[in-house]
């Protein structure tokens, strides 16, 4: 048994499979950052920091004639989203019910995905994480209110990256509203806007709940690193006669190695 304490939960193997599969399904669609940035790990629950390769001076030394430097690291953050499930629902699954109410799990998965997306694209200052959009140099390019103007804005972002010498392919993370506009829009002649943008980018267009506006970034590799300790997992908190209290949890850090490899687009 590890720190998730899953074996202590009053949940059958079959119900655990159901919960894991439901969480996996809900998370996979919404975890936008993992579709666009480098992923390292998972390195395990005991992995606590990312090596930054830098040092800071230490003002005093333990003896005369020596000097010291302290290694700089980026600590991982733990992110947790709790939820409860009715034990009667889980018992229903064990009897063969196919309409088990997992709404709280779905909601926790959505919260977790949004939190990860926000941390990666907009940062998490109090946890020491810098986001891609905030780190990107230069003034954000305006997307405009109409999706028909998006190709010009996205092409402008790609051109800006090319001028900086940042190679492709390029990916596009779109906030939910922007993604809906793109999906619903066909250009003159009926050509889907989504396909047009794909040709400009030569990379994926990703629905990114939690993202404000949009971000164009290079996917050549080495520019943005998501460092995973414990990858997303369901753990056990406690239970009573009526409910089981569980949580979704992960530990991670995010490093922007090349801020100029991204361009922010404002809505």
């Amino acid at each position, binding site marked *: 048994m*590890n720190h*998730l304490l*899953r074996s202590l939960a009053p949940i059958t193997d079959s119900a655990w*499979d159901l919960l*894991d599969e439901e*969480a*996996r399904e809900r*998370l*996979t*669609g919404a*975890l936008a950052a*993992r*579709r*666009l940035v*480098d*992923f390292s*790990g*998972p390195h*395990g*629950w005991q992995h606590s920091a990312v090596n930054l390769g830098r040092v800071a001076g230490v003002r005093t030394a333990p003896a005369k004639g020596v000097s010291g430097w302290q290694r700089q690291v980026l600590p991982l953050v733990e992110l947790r989203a709790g939820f409860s499930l009715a034990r009667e629902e889980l018992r229903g699954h064990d009897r063969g019910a196919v309409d088990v109410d997992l709404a709280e799990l779905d909601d926790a998965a959505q919260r977790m995905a949004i939190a990860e997306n926000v941390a990666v694209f907009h940062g998490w200052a109090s946890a020491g994480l810098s986001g891609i959009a905030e780190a990107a140099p230069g003034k954000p390019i305006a997307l405009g209110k109409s999706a028909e103007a998006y190709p010009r804005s996205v092409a402008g972002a790609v051109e800006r990256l090319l001028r900086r010498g940042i190679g492709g392919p390029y990916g596009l993370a779109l906030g939910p509203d922007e993604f809906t506009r793109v999906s619903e829009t066909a250009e003159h002649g009926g050509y889907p806007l989504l396909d047009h943008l794909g040709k400009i980018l030569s990379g994926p267009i990703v*629905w990114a709940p939690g993202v404000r506006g949009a971000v164009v970034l290079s*996917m050549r590799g080495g520019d943005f690193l998501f460092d*995973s300790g*414990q*990858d*997303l*997992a*369901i*753990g056990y908190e406690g239970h009573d006669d009526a409910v089981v209290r569980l949580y979704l949890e992960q530990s991670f850090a995010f490093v922007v190695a090349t801020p100029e490899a991204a361009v922010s687009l404002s809505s």
Partner: protein
Amino acid sequence: MTAHLLSLRAGGEDILFEFFESYTQFAHVSLLLAEVEPRIAVPGEADGRGGAGPDHRLRLWVRMGFDTYHEPPDELPAETRSFARMCASLTEEAEAIGWYEQRLAVETDPDARAVMRDAQGEEFKHFAMDLEFLLRRTPSWRAIAEGVLFRSGGIVEHGEQAEAEALDGGAGDESAAADDSGSLGIGSLIGAAR
């Protein structure tokens, strides 16, 4: 030297074999095959033209241990051909490691032993690189390897457990590699379907 393509038959299957580059190699292999399989038919001898020269295409009946491709290469996708080449490379590195181990066991000259030890170290590196390439391309293989490699305790027990978790646990596909952390196995989603 002229390259020769030999068509060999192993267990009823036709397999195209690598070429031999010299008479010496060719004669040596022919003798070896004749010892292994007395039914070997050498057309040059059978039809009275005398000997098997470099221009003869031979059909031999032998058993082969390994070849890069088991299926017609032109029917295989490029990534499968790369995978097969790396499997062949992995095998060759393991063979070389074994050969150096045997040579080191009998060699007494310290300078020669130092050279062999150094050379064997190169093969260790090559083997590890080949293996890492293959594991990156095969998540279920990687999941099992992670359950077995660099762990103390019973190798067989670890293997059985890792296999059960990685395959029987439904985590044999690319998106859901199992591990003993309780993780959902999501990892990177680059290239994943929405």
